[in-house]
């Protein structure tokens, strides 16, 4: 294994493809502005920024900064990426790659795009002012998306696209001020845990799959619903989420056989929980001052146990209470 120093004048794609680079080698990037597409076609290459000034700038003409093409065990750490025409980092096939502490901004499409790939770690990256933040697509499974921030994107913060994008975990991420959805999660057995969604169009949406787990998230200040469960979702579990100050429903449920357990749902502008379908269990939730009702049931066979419902106090209403709550949270991030 060797450490190879890289400058902005090195053709990194060509170097990796050559015999001079072997599995386990570290490519140590000197600070400076790089103008290139890097395509990684060899396993276990570690690309590490030497300092905070490593910048890949596509100058609005190059397509993608880093593409991991059917590789395993590649690390990309500490790089700034901006002004590419497509995505910042693409993982195409392969597995077990680590994308860590990169800062990605001003791209036309996706900050970090994973397709047909499994077991990757996407950790502590920041994506802003792109189309979408971090997206898993085309049968991407068992990926771990942890402690990332996506903000000010024109589309979705974090997402999976197809039913086959399954068994992924989104943990401790922040989606702030994205124009569409904070967490748009399709597929089966995905986990959304301990995330923050503030001031997005919609906080969390689940679709086309079953067994999704939505636990311990904070969802506030969305233009539409806090959490929208689309038609046909079965056996989703929502527990201990804090859903407040969203302009429409706290939770809008079009699924069936779901469980809503110990959520705090307050000050939402058009009901706390609306259940459109059947056979959901709603238990031990606290609902405070959602207007016009804390719970509306339009389906049937739903079971309600031990929920605490409080109406608005005199002079209390979502518009009054929520005021600047999203701004307060934004300023701390």
């Amino acid at each position: 294994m060797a450490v190879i120093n890289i400058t902005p004048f090195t053709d990194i794609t060509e170097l990796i493809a050559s015999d001079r680079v072997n599995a386990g080698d570290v490519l140590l990037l000197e600070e400076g502005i790089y103008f290139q597409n890097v395509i990684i076609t060899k396993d276990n290459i570690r690309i590490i920024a030497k300092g905070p000034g490593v910048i890949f700038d596509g100058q609005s003409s190059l397509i993608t900064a880093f593409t991991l093409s059917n590789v395993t065990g590649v690390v990309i750490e500490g790089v700034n990426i901006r002004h590419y025409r497509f995505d910042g980092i693409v993982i195409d096939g392969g597995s077990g790659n680590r994308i860590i502490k990169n800062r990605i901004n001003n791209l036309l499409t996706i900050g970090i795009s994973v397709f047909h790939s499994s077991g990757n770690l996407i950790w502590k990256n920041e994506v802003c002012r792109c189309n979408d933040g971090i997206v898993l697509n085309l049968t991407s499974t068992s990926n771990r998306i942890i402690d990332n921030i996506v903000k000010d994107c024109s589309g979705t913060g974090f997402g999976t696209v197809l039913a086959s994008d399954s068994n992924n975990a989104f943990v401790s991420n922040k989606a702030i001020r994205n124009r569409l959805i904070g967490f748009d999660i399709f597929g089966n057995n995905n986990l959304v845990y301990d995330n923050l969604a503030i001031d997005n169009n919609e906080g969390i949406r689940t679709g086309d799959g079953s067994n999704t787990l939505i636990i311990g998230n904070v969802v506030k200040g969305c233009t539409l619903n806090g959490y929208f469960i689309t038609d046909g979702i079965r056996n989703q579990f929502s527990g201990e989420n804090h859903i407040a100050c969203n302009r429409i429903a706290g939770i809008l449920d079009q699924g069936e056989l779901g469980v809503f357990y110990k959520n705090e749902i307050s000050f939402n502008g058009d009901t706390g929980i609306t259940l459109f379908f059947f056979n959901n269990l709603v238990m031990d939730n606290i609902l405070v001052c959602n207007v016009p009702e804390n719970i509306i049931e339009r389906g049937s066979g739903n079971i309600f146990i031990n929920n605490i419902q409080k109406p608005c106090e005199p002079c209390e209403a979502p518009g009054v209470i929520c005021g600047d709550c999203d701004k307060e949270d934004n300023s701390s991030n």
Partner: protein
Amino acid sequence: MDVKDKIKKEIDRLTGLIKENERITLQMPEYLRSNQIFLLELYKKQLNMLENELIKLEA
């Protein structure tokens, strides 16, 4: 929005981007062009896979 709408939107977006970037790539110097072409092929593969998913869903 259901999954079909989502895929259709993605297909439209990718189709537009590929077309636009093919044009831009043709104007690039030779030393940059090969990687750009590799990446465009990759996105075309992605587009093709999405189109197949849509066909499966609409069948």
